[in-house]
């Protein structure tokens, strides 16, 4: 008891940089407000919750922008366990904006049917809060907490249509495999703590740097942690949950999972690779090389066979994940570190804009056709030309065709591979080049339905697009075009992103 008192006396509350935490605090405040209001307000006034949610997300952007413009480049808290640097700010902005678009996608969708709006918004905000924390976490424990914080609400969101067996299946699969992945990761983290005697990433990095030699335990720890995140970003062969979850979950939730949740996984992976085990590249580089090649190839091949649009987009997003991983396979080589980081960040920015756009169209079209079949897009151009053209642009961007956003993301990924001037880099670039062609097989198939096939049942009733979806389409299409025609805009943000304390340069 006495010793405890001594400890208590010695304990000094850590100084908290409230400005640095402002985005998270705004979000936390907003989600509490949503939860409270939901209890008290009348059912007819529930639309206010939607407004509050979107307002919260936009309000949280304000401190992010102010932090980005402030003099202090890097703010660290808790002995470097929580860091606000440019990388985390860029990613936080991506999460918040993606979250805002997801709100726009959801708002009309959840107003119909038996949905619990208050809880939906609450869980969405909670998950986003976890993502913001993830972007700043630089410690094994805070990474793990952030990961659970963002995942657990996502499990529930996936099972949101609780009377629909498919939605239940989606939630359960996501939950079981997610928990399994967490367990694997946690095991890897515990090994890492055992080896390095610290949970702080930079210290782990320093320990491994100091010896420069790796025992089996190091390798096991690194591989387990990477495997854990491979589940999160649905890299092959750890992807099996994704298609079922994406198909079963409510479509706006799928959009959220395939963009924001995936990006969060990549953020953590990149932070770990760059700060915790940069010099273990001999272990993770080949591993990521294989993951990347498998992910894009198998994702592509399976996407070719799909008849359901959401399932196809699920496999397409698996395959896109392979392209994000691509530059990381050479990130440890001299000179490639910076470009690889830039490439990952840019890819996530562009991919977020484009893929959310695809989901906006899917939601708009499903309003009319009530079908998820790709064939239901037949003749879309003839009766809804704007939607048809926009979908074409989004798909072309995903396929990486200039002058749409996707091309610069793929280009920068290839660039960093070739910059490494290593055989592995060239080989993966070749695999990627072939895959980007194969991918057009299924993107082109949807375009073909839209432009060249007859309308099924000759049902050409006009599609009424709700205002929120229109706004979402304007934002995503604008971003997709701007990133493609003036790639400097996106690259500028991606180039700023530098992980404080990263050893790889």
């Amino acid at each position, binding site marked *: 008891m006495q010793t405890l008192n001594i400890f208590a006396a010695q304990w000094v509350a850590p100084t908290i940089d409230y400005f640095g935490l402002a985005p998270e605090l705004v979000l936390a405040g907003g989600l509490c407000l949503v939860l409270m209001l939901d209890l008290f307000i009348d059912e007819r006034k529930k639309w206010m919750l939607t407004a509050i949610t979107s307002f919260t997300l936009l309000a949280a952007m304000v401190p992010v922008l102010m932090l980005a413009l402030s003099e202090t480049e890097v703010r660290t808290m808790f002995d470097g366990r929580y860091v606000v640097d440019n990388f985390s700010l860029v990613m936080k902005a991506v999460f918040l904006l993606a979250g805002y678009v997801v709100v726009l996608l959801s708002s009309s969708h959840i107003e119909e049917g038996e949905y619990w709006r208050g809880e939906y918004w609450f869980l969405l905000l909670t998950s986003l809060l976890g993502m913001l924390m993830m972007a700043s976490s630089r410690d094994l424990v805070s990474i793990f907490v952030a990961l659970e914080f963002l995942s657990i609400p996502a499990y529930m969101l996936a099972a949101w249509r609780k009377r629909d067996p498919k939605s239940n299946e989606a939630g359960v699969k996501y939950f079981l495999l997610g928990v399994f992945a967490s367990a694997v990761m946690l095991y890897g983290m515990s090994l890492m703590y055992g080896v390095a005697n610290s949970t702080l990433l930079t210290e782990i990095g320093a320990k491994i740097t100091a010896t420069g030699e790796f025992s089996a335990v190091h390798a096991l720890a690194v591989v387990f942690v990477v495997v854990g995140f491979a589940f999160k970003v649905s890299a092959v062969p750890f992807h099996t949950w994704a298609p079922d979850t994406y198909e079963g979950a409510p479509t706006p939730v799928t959009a959220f999972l395939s963009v924001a949740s995936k990006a969060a996984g990549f953020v953590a992976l990149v932070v770990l690779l760059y700060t915790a085990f940069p010099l273990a590249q001999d272990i993770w580089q080949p591993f990521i090389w294989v993951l990347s090649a498998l992910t894009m190839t198998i994702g592509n091949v399976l996407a070719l066979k799909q008849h359901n649009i959401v399932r196809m987009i699920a496999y397409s997003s698996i395959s896109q994940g392979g392209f994000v991983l691509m530059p990381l396979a050479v990130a440890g080589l001299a000179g490639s570190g910076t470009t690889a980081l830039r490439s990952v960040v840019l890819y996530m920015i562009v991919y977020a804009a484009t893929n959310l756009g695809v989901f906006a169209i899917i939601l708009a079209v499903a309003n009319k056709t009530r079908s998820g079949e790709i064939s239901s897009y037949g003749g879309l151009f003839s009766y809804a030309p704007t939607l048809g053209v926009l979908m074409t642009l989004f798909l072309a961007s995903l396929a990486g065709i200039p002058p749409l956003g996707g091309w610069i993301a793929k280009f920068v990924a290839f*660039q960093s591979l070739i910059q490494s001037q290593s055989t592995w880099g060239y080989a993966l670039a070749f695999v990627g080049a072939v895959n980007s062609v194969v991918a057009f097989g299924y993107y082109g198939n949807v375009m073909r339905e839209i432009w060249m096939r007859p309308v099924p049942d000759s049902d050409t009733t006009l599609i009424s697009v709700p205002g929120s979806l229109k706004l979402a389409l304007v934002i995503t299409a604008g971003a997709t075009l701007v990133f493609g025609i003036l790639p400097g805009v996106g690259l500028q943000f991606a180039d700023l992103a530098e992980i404080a304390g990263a050893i790889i340069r």
Partner: protein
Amino acid sequence: MNMLQENNWLLSVGTFLPLLGVVVLLLTPKASDQMVKLVALVTSIATLAVGVYTALKFDFDQAEKLQFVADAKWISVIKSSYLIGVDGISLPLYLLSMIITLLVVIYSLDHVPSPGKPKAFFSLLLVLQTGMAGTFIAQDLILFFVFFELVLLPMFFLIGVWGGEQRQYASIKFFLYTMFGSALMLVAFLALFFKTGAESFSIPYLIENGGSIAKNIQIWIFAGMFVGFAVKVPMFPFHTWLPDAHTQAPTQGSVILAAILLKLGTYGFVRIALPILPDAAREWAPYIGGLAVIGIIYGALGCLAQTDMKRLIAFSSVAHMGFVMLGISTLTSFGVNAAMFGMVAHGLITGMLFFIAGSVKERYHTLEISKLGGMLTAMPRLGWIFGFCAMASLGLPGLAGFWGEFPAILSAYNPAEGLNETVFRVFMVIAALGTVLAAAYLLWMFQRIAFGTAKNSSSHDHSHSDDLHDVTTFEWIAWTPLLLGILVLGILPNLLFSVFDPAVQITLSAFGG
């Protein structure tokens, strides 16, 4: 390399003006079909006017220099800039693209193919024009790549929506082939960038520094570019998309494809692959020449086997582009000049042949050669125009086709230093045989279609007999410039050669002239 920067707004305006037309079209949701056609026509006339003004301002005494050069920041992070300019090599092709687009627009005024939708059709034509013109003015590899790819989607939809019965298959095939080529091309561009010290993607810079790359690496980089450009040309064995795409495309699509899109590939060889990687070009030249003559013979034999008029013309493109590539593979200024001339001539002649095929299809409702016949008696003017173009295509002296084909064959007699003379002389003989075959298939086609008694379908289907009308006004307006071009360039080839030659000399300086 010094550059001239006066009037450097001209090229950007000429290239992006069509997009302005597209924006106008998109912003007028309830435009009538007449209105749409008017906007497209005005836009393409204005574009050509800017192009002609550019040509007037062009300093032909310094055709070897890049002119109207504009250099603006674009993607500074990856060291790519908006660097554009034209010299004697690109100017004629740049103008040709504008002329062809205008003529195609005029032709389309009363020939919008089924299923209609003129707004989308003309918008795609205009986007296509921006892509084509941009490719010819880009002096930065990344900019070149973006424009090179920009033509893909519009063409994909032109074939896929407005094409023939197999249009969906043909359009996907076209797209996948080209995209595969350009993916490898992009990887090659990146490798080139890093091997020259990661300084710049600008073509003039790379021409200065590309030669210093080790030869074995050059060979690999060249391989990537080769696939990208050869698919587009198309060279044997990458040509299989072409007959399908041409046959299924609407007339307008075929014309643009033949007249301009194929040239993007050969232009890429002359502008990028040869001058930047001279050592690799020397190693690759015999293989390129070999594939070129295989293409000549294969294309000609393919023509002889065709029963469909449009497919026959498509295969003849493979053969003609074989002559162009043979000229390029000699690495001599003589050969490349011939190749450049061949590109323009092929654009005029084959473009014209596809126009005729379109009109035949419209009148006879078939392109099966066995069902056609007696065109000269039924429609004498169309028949004579067809005959004129067939003669030009087989390389009759006095018409434009001759000046692309004959010098290309001749240049193979004396290839650049360091290339095996015997091999190229064998190529020359084979290519010369190819011209005989060309005469055979073209004359045979002409004979079967134009001679004999009129076999129109009126005997069993009266409603069609009215369709056999002679050349219409719109067709006259669209065709006359091409016909005149074929004749004038045939009589005065020096008009073009004198523009090409200085630039070609400079481009090939690494090969000793």
